């Protein structure tokens, strides 16, 4: 069943940069889609338009029959709480405890007041404990987030996203600031949990080999346009070259 539809998505930043030039694709439930493409191709903008951390200029993003682009504040909150997100820079609240960071995943389900004053109830805390045990951080629950290593912080990030009980997971370059070993651990956690829970995942990567290893489907983006959408097996050397080099090589040659 279709979970997310992206239709003719365009984004032009105020400084004139055109990041997306009309992107179309659909995400079905349980898919693990990896988006690849060179730096500056618009991968990050695309992902951020899905939960509207970036406002699209044109087009539609339909998540469970609701248009994210046109949603009002209340509807947007309801959409966002069903979409987990993990970031390249982990983006944990550094001065807060690991536990509190995971509890932040519940904010979208809480009243304004309770959320502002840290009034999390026992069942929420229990869920947070369980999630932290699940990502192997049972020992670190009361540490400050910035005391953890990068790989551990990203696992907290995954736990925070899972606390939202999401239907869709957005992962923006989740392993770009990690060493190879931690990268493997993170990708394994992300992949296995998403598959087990039936969470669809949209993951930005720039390592093609990692993309091929995990993806059930790969989307290739070049200069704001979709240039490939298919199974990992269909991603040939030729297509990879097209995605990553395309016109760029010519530009370098001319200089």
């Amino acid at each position, binding site marked *: 069943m279709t979970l997310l539809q992206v239709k003719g998505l365009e984004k032009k930043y105020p400084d004139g940069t055109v990041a997306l030039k009309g992107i179309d694709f659909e995400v079905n439930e349980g898919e693990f889609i990896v988006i690849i493409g060179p730096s500056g191709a618009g991968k990050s903008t695309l992902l951020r338009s899905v939960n509207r951390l970036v406002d699209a200029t044109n087009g539609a993003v339909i998540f469970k029959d609701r248009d994210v682009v046109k949603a009002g504040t209340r509807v947007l909150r309801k959409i966002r709480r069903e979409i987990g997100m993990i970031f390249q820079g982990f*983006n944990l*609240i*550094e*001065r807060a405890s690991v536990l509190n960071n995971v509890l*932040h995943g519940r904010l979208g389900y809480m009243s304004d007041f309770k959320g502002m004053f840290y009034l999390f109830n026992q069942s929420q805390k229990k869920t947070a404990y369980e999630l932290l045990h699940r990502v192997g951080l049972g020992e670190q629950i009361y540490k400050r987030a910035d005391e953890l290593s990068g790989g551990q912080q990203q696992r907290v990030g995954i736990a*925070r996203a899972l606390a939202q009980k999401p239907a869709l997971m957005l992962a923006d370059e989740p392993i770009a600031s990690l060493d190879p070993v931690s990268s493997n651990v993170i990708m394994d956690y992300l992949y296995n949990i998403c598959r087990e829970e039936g969470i669809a995942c949209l993951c930005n990567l720039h390592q093609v080999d990692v993309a091929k290893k995990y993806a059930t489907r790969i989307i290739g983006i070049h200069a704001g346009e979709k240039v490939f959408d298919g199974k990992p097996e269909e991603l040939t050397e030729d297509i990879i070259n097209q995605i990553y080099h395309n016109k760029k090589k010519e530009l370098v040659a001319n200089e």
Partner: protein
Amino acid sequence: MSEKQLLQVRKQKRLQVFLFFAAMLALSVWSAISTGFSFSGLFTGTVDSTKFIIFDLFPPDFSYIASLVEPALETIYMSFVAMVIGAIVAAFLAIFASATTAPHPIVQVAVRAFSSLFRNIPVLIWTILLAAAYGLGTLVGTIALIMVSTGALTRAFAEILEEIDMGQVEAVRATGASYGQVLAQGVLPQFLPGFFGWSLYMLEINIRASTIIGMVGGGGLGFVIQTQIKLFQYEQVSMAVLLTLVLVLIMEWITNQIRERII
């Protein structure tokens, strides 16, 4: 870029540096002439003031200390109350004055202008203006200090808010948190260390400023100093000055201790 262009750029840079220093020198000479500044004048002035300190101010009248306790406490009360109220009001205003948290750019400009007005009118002027309305006393001093504290802290807090890591804020927003929740859970933890640091610094500044505003009728130690000067009681004046110095040093020490523990 060609060799020739690079040389051109270097020449231009050198000329800029030369012009800058030439302009500085010209301005200094001009200012010195206009103000009648001279090194010999500086020297004779030093001799006179040293004489004044040795023969008139010394020794400080230690018996006077008992009657200075109350003004000294007044100074502390004024500074503390002004800091607390200033910090609370400024924290609220800063949310609207910072580009990262302001709900609308126009609000931001308005609040910035407002706080700039409070901050840039010197505390001395505020006291004189307010004394006309409220009469002399600690109330006037306190209100003047609140005005300036609020203005200065709003600016400082707004800048802290602009420097926070937006990635962390974005992550909280992405969970579906409301505006208030994002402020409380994403912004506040990053804001608190700076909030305490600047507020304590403001307390120090207030203690120093309160002696000045005391002289124009704001109460506290400054008021005593001004009164005793008018009565030519210089030994008592020097006692009050000494006490002010001690007060400032103690306050600096205390705030440093607190700062180290919090941040």
